[in-house]
């Protein structure tokens, strides 16, 4: 939905991964036998990293500066006149709660994101099981329909949904936002989960069948536990997507303003509220950054999912 959503995971064909310890060995074999990389490589990378980090760093510094300072001097001057360090303040953060209602927005964001992340997982897992371990007429057609829908922009659904929700009085409620995200996230969920399940050893299922286990039992006792990595990585995708979503929140959330919408309102009144904008911006990104950093391993594994297929 958002332009940021880089996770419309299309089929990924990465050649077989090297063993976990392979990176250092490869690097040595690939390039210089000495342990250090060439100086120019380190300089270029350092410059790129700096370019990637400095914009965010500037926002972080500004969020601790007083309104007058932030309005009249660039944030970098704090390093040229170190006396300014003593003028840093936490006031912007308290203002953001009292004046911009970011506290409520934070709660709304949680209230929107958690159900919209958790509920689709089980639904998609059952569908993934059916696609991977059951044979039935129409399977290929349905799978291809889902792959095709990965490409379809979700905007196509907004006008009809708005009318539909309007007719049953659901507009502006939390369930409207949950259901929308669940529906829009479903093709990706089914796709990456069944892609992963297809890589699980078929023998396990066969032997479970011989032991007399039903599909239902096999799913609960074997397949679901074995699929935890992909379920986790889908959960992270969906969490980041829903948390950062603006479009659906603008259209369906009504009074349940999440952080993204609250922040857009602050962005709209630039000139007066810039220092609030910085604190609000930083506050909005804390949760996704923590989620991302702590679960990065799963995230990357999900992105390269399919790469390990037999």
């Amino acid at each position, binding site marked *: 939905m958002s332009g940021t959503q880089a996770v419309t995971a299309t089929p990924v064909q990465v050649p077989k991964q090297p063993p976990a310890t392979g990176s250092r060995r*490869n690097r040595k074999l690939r390039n210089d036998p000495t342990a250090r990389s060439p100086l120019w490589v380190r300089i270029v990378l350092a410059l790129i990293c700096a370019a990637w980090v400095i914009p965010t760093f500037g926002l972080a510094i500004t969020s601790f500066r007083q309104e007058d300072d932030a309005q009249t001097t660039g944030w970098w001057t704090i390093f040229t006149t170190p006396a300014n360090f003593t003028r840093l303040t936490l006031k912007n953060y308290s203002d953001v709660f009292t004046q911009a209602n970011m506290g409520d927005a934070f709660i709304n964001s949680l209230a929107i994101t958690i159900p919209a992340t958790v509920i689709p997982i089980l639904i998609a897992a059952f569908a993934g099981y059916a696609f991977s371990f059951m044979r039935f007429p129409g399977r290929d057609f349905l799978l291809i329909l889902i792959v095709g829908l990965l490409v379809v922009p979700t905007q196509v659904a907004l006008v009809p949904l708005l009318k539909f929700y309007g007719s049953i009085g659901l507009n502006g409620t939390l369930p409207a936002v949950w259901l929308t995200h669940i529906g829009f996230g479903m093709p990706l969920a089914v796709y990456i989960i069944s892609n992963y399940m297809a890589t699980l050893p078929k023998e396990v299922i066969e032997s479970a069948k011989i032991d007399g286990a039903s599909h239902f039992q096999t799913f609960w006792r074997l397949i679901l536990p074995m699929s935890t990595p992909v379920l986790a990585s889908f959960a992270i995708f969906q969490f980041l997507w829903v948390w950062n979503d603006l479009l659906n929140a603008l259209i369906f959330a009504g009074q349940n303003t999440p952080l*993204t919408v609250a922040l857009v309102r602050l962005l709209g009144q630039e000139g007066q509220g810039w220092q609030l904008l910085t604190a609000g911006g930083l506050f909005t990104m804390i949760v996704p950054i923590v989620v991302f950093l702590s679960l990065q391993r799963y995230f*990357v594994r999900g992105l390269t999912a399919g790469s390990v297929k037999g």
Partner: protein
Amino acid sequence: MIKILNALIAVVGGVAGAILLYWLLNKLAELLPGRWEDRVKPYLFLLPALAAIGLYLVYPTIQTFVYSFANNHSTAFVGFDNYAKLLTSKNFQNTLFNTFLWILIVPAAVIAFGLLIATLADRLRPSGEKTAKTLIFLPLAIGAVSAGAIWKFVYATRPPGQNQIGLLNGIWTAFGGDPVNWLQISTLRFNSLLLMVMLLWMQAGFAMVLLSAAIKGVPTETLEAARLDGAGEGSIFFRIVIPQIRTTIITVFITVLIGVLKTFDIVYVMTNGNFNTNVIAVDFFNQLFTNRNNGYAAAIVVMLLIIMIPVLVFQVRQFRAEEAAR
């Protein structure tokens, strides 16, 4: 707080409800005589997911298609009027042109940066590689609205004579230039380019992660052989590494392309499509909510869908080839 409680109830209720639903569906299937049980069960397992997809994507797509031939309140059909009016409007032509620029520039730039970073980071020690990658990957988690807050402070302008507070103008004036209102320069679509930089900033990390995994998977023997034959680093990269990671490059390209076509938040937040920066997804939103014209909005997304068709066909083909190979 009550909302959190509601959300938690929804989570517990939703999950419990789903478990109960599947249990019931399963029981229902087991009531059927032997062969029928096996025949029906797959569809019962699929039912909730397919219902969600049908209700939220398939049916609305068809309905939007119908609306695109109707008037602004979807009360009467107007034939191809919406399309004709849009395509002949100067504004919409501009919007389409901008969208094509995004399509042409962003995916290619993301891949170029992703490759550059992946290749360079591959030569660092593992700890350095990990740090560099994390820093570059991080903007993906930040989200477009927060990114808007961040980049407003890069592109901000103050009148001449005042201290600049935007980073870009800070650098520009330090070198003796006059402060520039960056986001209002539409000559050569410079402001659109500045917005594209934001998307590049957010997505380069994604490309890097996939491409880096692919590069590490290139067999060392082929590289060694090339080196023994006296190939330079440059030709090794372009003649040996690139061809071997082609599929991954295409995958990243398609994924970024899909993201680009849906780009809404960045433009909406930074310029709301003013100063000649409009793109198709923002125009859709404004037709729907500012101009209250369902017909135009629907026609715009149908056109977006049409632009997507080649990607869709490619995607499905790729998938079938993979299924066949499995």
